[in-house]
């Protein structure tokens, strides 16, 4: 199946006038893969991110308000933990995002290094600080949650310990990136680290659970939430979704910054920037 005579990339340009001397390659691709190749094109991704951000930001805000109202007001207090359990509505989404973002980062890094896609590297770089902040939030809220419930500001239980190790993995990734001046080398070196890290994540989690079980027997993690009924559950799911949409919204800006860093001399950039 041959591609249309016009380049698949030119349809998607926010700027209809394209200079003849473009630095972008124009692959002839089967049209069913067009969406993938479009997505991998920095100008397309840049434009898409610009357009999507307001939608994502507002959706995330609405979801957060709904979820927070459900969690703080509508959900009935827990029998044992009373109103303190409401902390899970911020702690659990943060913890989930902490892991999800790392996975997304590692997958993007792998795509970037295997298929040499600059955009994938840009995505991975954009993920790291956001994921690290989610991890910090998860740690801090987990610690504060623990104080009234189990009497101490810190416990070495498997969940919070693996969140802590996750933070170390993020910090190491960002430190390695920062130690290279050249963006390309930073991209590729940190991609290797991310892949090695993500292979280790299940190993770390398993080892931490095993380590903890030696002392407590098969008891549940101290940060285990109370058994969730639907009236307690739906705000949690809403907020997890809200955090994901929020992540996408923030990524729009961060991805655009990373694209700008890597596309210094591309002509699409030069035309766009001068006009914006």
């Amino acid at each position, binding site marked *: 199946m041959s591609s249309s005579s016009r380049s698949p990339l030119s349809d998607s340009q926010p700027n209809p006038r394209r200079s003849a001397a473009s630095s972008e390659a124009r692959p002839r691709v089967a049209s069913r893969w067009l969406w993938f190749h479009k997505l991998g094109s920095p100008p397309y991704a840049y434009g898409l991110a610009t357009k999507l951000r307001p939608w994502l*930001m507002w959706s995330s805000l609405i979801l957060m308000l709904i979820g*927070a109202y459900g969690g*703080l*007001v509508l959900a009935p*207090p827990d029998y044992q933990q*009373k*109103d*303190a359990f*409401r*902390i899970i509505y*911020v*702690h659990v989404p*943060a913890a989930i995002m902490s892991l999800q973002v790392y996975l997304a980062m590692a997958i993007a890094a792998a795509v970037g290094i295997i298929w040499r896609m600059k955009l994938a590297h840009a995505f991975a770089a954009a993920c790291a*600080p*956001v994921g690290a*902040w*989610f991890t*910090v*939030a998860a740690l*801090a*809220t987990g610690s*504060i*949650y623990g*104080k*009234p419930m189990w009497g101490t500001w810190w416990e070495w239980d498997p969940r919070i310990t693996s969140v802590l190790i996750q933070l170390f993995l993020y910090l190491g990734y960002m430190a390695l990136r920062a130690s290279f001046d050249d963006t390309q080398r930073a991209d590729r070196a940190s991609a290797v680290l991310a892949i090695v890290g993500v292979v280790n994540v299940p190993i770390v989690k398993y080892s931490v659970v095993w380590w903890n079980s030696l002392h407590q027997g098969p008891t549940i993690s101290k940060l285990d939430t109370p058994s969730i009924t639907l009236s307690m559950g739906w705000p949690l799911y809403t907020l997890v979704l809200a955090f994901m949409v*929020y992540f996408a*919204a*923030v990524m729009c*800006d*961060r991805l*655009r*910054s990373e694209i*700008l*860093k890597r596309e*210094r*001399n591309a002509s699409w*950039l*030069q035309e766009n*920037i*001068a006009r*914006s």
Partner: protein
Amino acid sequence: MNLQSFLSMSGYGAYVWSCYGLTIAVLLWNVWSARRQLREAIVHARRRTEAQREDAARRGAGAGVPGEVRS
């Protein structure tokens, strides 16, 4: 539920509200920080583009000295 019980959270108010406050602060920080970095990146890119244009124009007009290095 009245405002009093809402704020006190059956005695755990300090813990619950500090968690929510902390989380909101992190979320707001990330939005603001991403925006700020984007604005800076656009400014940098614009400056670079203008500098390259000047460079090209000068060279096109024949006024540039071969081997002149632009910072």
